[in-house]
């Protein structure tokens, strides 16, 4: 299969079931929305080292947010159910509570599984906190020096998919980066997905484990490192000199498939040799996104 001359490998991306919360963050202005969201989603690229994966899903207009102020929707994902509340309390407490003018709402109010957030953060109020039920949802009002921080008592938790991916194999680093940027631009703002890595792009794709160290749970994906072509069992065609990976997490398989389709299509530019995907032989992750099916419009 080829798209504008770019070979699409007959392989699949192997992804995992995770748990997600959607946070709606509002503030007085776009500036403080952005500051809060960037801090909240900082250092959240991979559960391997960050305990969670997070990203900005999309910007929200004033008409879309609960309090009529500018906002963003953020998705935060973890591997285990009992991790979600911990990560949310840590991050909301340190990055949203602290940020001027912000409020934090549950973006999945209909989800039956709930995790405590505001009900834990309220103790920062040292007994001066109070709660209000508005429209059937309880919020905590935590007094702070600026005024008051408002946060939802609980957040919805849903199953989601982490680790959707595709690799861009290009003739040189400039073209790999251009293709990756085009892919991210095409995927940006699509509903139900985040791209948790810097700018949506990973240059250090990993394999499970390590050949040298038993303590490493992941190490460099040597088969796709062009500098190791001569010393390892390479997966790179002769003309490939740089590889970048796009990792996408989504609330469901359709969201991941749709975003991969848009991203792969955008990445098929001159200088890109082929598009492939990372998997572990199908033994680890239950979600398999077959590239050719996706690009044929069939989805995962």
């Amino acid at each position, binding site marked *: 299969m080829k798209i504008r001359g770019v070979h699409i490998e007959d392989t699949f991306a192997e992804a995992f079931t995770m748990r997600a919360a959607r946070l709606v963050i509002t503030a007085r202005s776009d500036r403080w929305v952005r500051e809060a969201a960037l801090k909240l989603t900082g250092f959240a690229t991979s559960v391997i080292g960050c305990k969670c994966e997070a990203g900005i899903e999309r910007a929200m207009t004033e008409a879309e947010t*609960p309090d*009529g102020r500018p906002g963003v929707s953020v998705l935060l994902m973890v591997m285990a159910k009992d991790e979600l509340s911990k990560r949310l309390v840590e991050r909301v407490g340190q990055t949203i509570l602290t940020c001027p003018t912000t409020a934090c709402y549950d973006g999945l109010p209909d989800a039956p599984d709930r995790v405590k957030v505001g009900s834990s953060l309220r103790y920062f109020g040292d007994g001066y906190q*109070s709660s*209000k*039920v*508005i*429209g059937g949802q309880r*919020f905590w009002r935590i007094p702070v020096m600026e005024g*008051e921080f408002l946060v939802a008592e609980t957040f919805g938790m849903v199953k989601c998919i982490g680790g959707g991916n595709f690799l861009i194999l290009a003739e040189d680093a400039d073209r790999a980066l251009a293709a990756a940027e085009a892919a991210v631009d095409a995927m940006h703002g699509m509903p139900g997905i985040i791209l948790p890595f810097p700018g949506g792009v990973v240059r250090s794709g990993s394999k499970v484990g390590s050949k040298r160290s038993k303590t490493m749970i992941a190490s460099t994906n040597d088969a796709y490192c062009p500098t190791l072509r001569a010393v390892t069992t390479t997966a790179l065609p002769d003309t490939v000199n740089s590889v970048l990976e796009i990792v996408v997490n989504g609330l469901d398989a359709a969201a991941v498939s749709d975003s991969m389709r848009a991203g792969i299509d955008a990445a098929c530019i001159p200088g890109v040799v082929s598009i492939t995907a990372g998997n572990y032989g199908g033994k680890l992750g239950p979600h398999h996104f077959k590239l050719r099916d996706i690009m044929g419009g069939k989805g995962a």
Partner: protein
Amino acid sequence: MSGIRLTLRSPLAGRVDLRAAFAASWTAATPAELARREVWSARSGTVPLGELFAIDGTPDGSATLAGDLTLAERVGAGLAEGFVRVDGNVGDRAGADLSGGRLEIGGNAGDSTAEGMAGGLVVVRGNTGDRAGAAAPGRKRGMTGGELVILGNAGDETGALMRRGLVAVGGTTGCCTLLSTIAGTVVACGAVGAEAALWNKRGSLICLGSVDPSATYRYACVIQPVYLRLLFRRLRDVHGLPVTAAHIDGRYRRYSGDFSETGKGEILAWSPA
């Protein structure tokens, strides 16, 4: 029109108590089944509902009562499901002990509307008498949940002894609004009478009109509480209260009190720019 329709056969000559009409599960009941429910009449004692009302229609979870029900007490009292609509006025204790569903009164309601309400929604398009959302005589707690929306004016002691829930008033409230409240919220779009939020423990009184906090309240600051943005947008968009952008974006003088109690309650008084 679908649903059950109850049309008063003749004007009420004395007080009736309609609590039994909708207190038990009723949304699947046929007109004949509803007609057999026994209600109380001051003139005749216990009478079948069908003697007072001509009942027809098809069950769909809604019921409409037509006729002058000013002498009818406890209309919709004990309601736990469905949607009961009254075209005109009702007497005292409408929606008392309501725990779910929705009661909508097109006209005025008497005293003690929604007393002891625990959940659901009561909407009064006209005025209410005294003690709306308050506690029934002998009880320690008034509303413990749900929303009471009064588009007109409310009388004295609105929200007295509330524990939880929301009372929103489109017009004015009488004296002793939020009296002895444990917690909960009263919003008044008009002026609030004397002795506002007296002996209030943790409740919130939000005033868009004039209010004169008692000496047992202390001024704290001017603030723009974000939670009011949520609350006001809901009251405006869902219930049609006269809340404006100036209220939503506005600043509020916060008074803490009542310091004759815990001092954890508040009065938020809108401060026009």
